[in-house]
């Protein structure tokens, strides 16, 4: 029962930490650290929630989570899936329900990840196929494909062998040459650091819990941080100011017919403005001790959660 209580506390703590992280100002100063923190928090939330349900449900075996699971398996196989030692204790029905909920949550999270990956791969293949047919090379942007469309767009299509950077004719028109190089550097950073893989678990969470607003909010927070990581990289390779003006030109070029609300509603500042202002007036980078402290507490939390799975109480 002790481990169940502790794991539940950690699960709630993760949600509280995520809510604080969402509104904290330091992530913009250390986007890489913040992205890792988000990942650790997300993973720890999953492990602790599932662990808490199991720990509570498996109390009658008195072996903790890992030992309890083994006992559950042998109990189930010995009695033809009737969990005699769970069901016949006080609170038996609730405990069985908790175990079922734990397995259900695991399944939902796992299926979400698989479904997301399949969906992403399929979307990319279709996109890639069409791109081959309708895009062209342009001597002005070596290594990128050009789409003849008046709206401004630049993006990358990640993949192991077939990654591509695509830029629209509209974008070529509004960008100066130096700004264009900054944009390409930004997209190259996405491809090189495989930012799509970082985002994948969060988009699969979104898929698993489509109606939960909080998940959507956190997904956007991580997506914005990833953009900031690529901005920083491009700013180092080119200049932050070139990238900032490129961002502004994109924002003001021609796709204003998109209905409002396409971006996070309730955001006082649009995401692009936040990216631009930190490029133009960069705040001091997150100090090394502060970064180390954040990472250390995040990993301690995860290690504690994992060890609680082994606690036989």
């Amino acid at each position, binding site marked *: 029962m002790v481990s169940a209580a502790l794991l539940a506390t950690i699960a709630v703590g993760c949600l509280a930490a995520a809510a604080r992280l969402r509104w904290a100002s330091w992530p913009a100063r250390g986007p890489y650290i913040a992205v890792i923190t988000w990942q650790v928090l997300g993973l720890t939330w999953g492990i602790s929630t599932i662990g808490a349900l199991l720990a509570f449900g498996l109390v009658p075996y008195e072996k903790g989570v890992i030992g309890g699971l083994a006992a559950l398996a042998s109990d189930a196989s010995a009695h033809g899936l009737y969990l005699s030692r769970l069901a016949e204790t006080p609170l038996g029905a609730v405990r069985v329900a908790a175990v079922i909920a734990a397995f259900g949550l695991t399944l939902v999270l796992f299926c979400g990840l698989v479904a*997301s990956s399949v*969906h*992403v791969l399929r*979307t*990319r293949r279709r*996109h890639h*196929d*069409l791109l*081959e*047919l*309708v*895009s062209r*090379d342009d001597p002005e942007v070596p290594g990128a494909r050009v*789409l*003849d*469309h008046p*709206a401004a*767009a*630049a*993006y*990358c*299509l*990640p993949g192991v062998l077939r990654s591509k950077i*695509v830029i*629209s004719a509209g974008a070529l028109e509004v960008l100066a040459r130096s700004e264009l190089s900054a*944009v390409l550097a*930004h*997209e190259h950073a996405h491809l090189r650091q495989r*930012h*799509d893989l970082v*985002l*994948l678990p969060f*988009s699969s969470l*979104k*898929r698993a819990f489509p109606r939960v607003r909080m998940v959507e909010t956190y997904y956007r927070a991580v997506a914005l941080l*990833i*953009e900031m990581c*690529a901005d920083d990289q491009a700013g180092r390779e080119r200049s932050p*100011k070139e990238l900032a*003006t*490129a*961002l*502004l030109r*994109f*924002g*003001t070029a021609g*796709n*204003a017919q*998109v*209905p*409002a*609300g*396409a*971006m996070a509603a309730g955001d006082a500042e*649009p*995401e*692009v*403005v936040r990216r*631009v202002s930190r490029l*133009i007036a960069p705040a001091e980078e997150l100090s090394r001790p502060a970064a180390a402290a954040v990472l250390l507490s995040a990993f301690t939390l995860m290690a504690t959660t994992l060890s609680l799975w082994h606690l036989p109480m």
Partner: protein
Amino acid sequence: MNRLGDLERAVMEVLWAEDESLTVREVSRALADRDLAHTTVMTVLDRLAKKGVVARSREGRAWRYRPAASRESYVSELMFDALGQTGDRGAALAAFVRSMSGNEAEALRRALAEIDQPRT
């Protein structure tokens, strides 16, 4: 881009240029300057049909092929993906800037004017 992609594009150009559906032989004839074997064109059309960008129908003993959609609609589909308007596509590709509302664009326009001013 590889040779196969090149061929696929050439075949699509032929199909897009015509109003009606074409047989393999007619496509080959349109690409006569490339000196392609009949089977090569057939293979390319088959690949395009599998990708869903070409629709085929049987007429007598021959298949006839036509584009499943216009070139413009494919470009728009790609741009829709790119500007993040097709819903859950965030992880599939990463756009430099998502599309934004009129107010946001207006705020940016002002910011840009301020930056551009010293230069002019």
